[in-house]
């Protein structure tokens, strides 16, 4: 497994964790009635702000831990760890295909937001959909990358 492929696996694990966390947080906001009050957008935005901050910091920490774990496992299996963090032209091509999926989800979320507001849904509900499209798009983009890595060897 190349460095970028390992990174993709880590990003999938992080993506799943973030998506689950977003679902739990949003469900909590709806259950507490915070999404129906006049301050719904501010409360949602504050919650999502911290979700994003923790996701970024958690992602960096997970990436560091994951790299160490991969190195230990690789050393145990093959006798030596790949210490070169090369990103080559094939990695960039595969990253582009993943980015296209992420962009497609993001675009769909934006259109859904506009359509939702047009058809009378509350702005905060539409923002929730947009946020899910962002986080799901990131996850599916990484899954497509992993599939392309596996299929092209």
């Amino acid at each position: 497994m190349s460095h970028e492929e390992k990174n993709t696996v880590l990003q999938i694990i992080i993506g799943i964790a973030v998506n689950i966390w977003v679902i739990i947080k949003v469900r909590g906001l709806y259950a507490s009635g915070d999404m129906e009050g006049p301050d719904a957008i501010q409360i949602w935005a504050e919650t999502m702000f911290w979700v994003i901050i923790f996701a970024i910091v958690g992602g960096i920490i997970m990436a560091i831990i994951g790299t160490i774990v991969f190195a230990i496992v690789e050393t145990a299996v093959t006798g030596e760890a790949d210490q070169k963090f090369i990103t080559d032209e094939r990695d960039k091509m595969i990253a582009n295909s993943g980015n296209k999926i992420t962009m497609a989800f993001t675009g769909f979320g934006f259109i859904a937001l506009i359509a939702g507001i047009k058809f009378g849904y509350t702005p905060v509900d539409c923002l929730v959909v947009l946020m899910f499209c962002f986080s799901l798009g990131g996850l599916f983009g990484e899954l497509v990358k992993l599939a392309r890595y596996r299929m092209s060897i």
Partner: protein
Amino acid sequence: MAKKPKITNTIRRLRFDADEMTQKALADQVGVTRQTIVAIENAKYYPTLELAFLIARVFGKEISDVFTIEMDE
């Protein structure tokens, strides 16, 4: 609709002829990962022109000696 042409290569044989050069050694010389060399050898990934020239140069060959295009009729 015309079929996509297939690009084949002789990298595996050239590595064998070059004192059984490993995929990793070739990858290091051209600045890519070993997995990319594996993908190129198996015709699962077509390299850029730049990488194709670099690979040919490692073996002291012309690019056409390493890569061949096959047109399906």
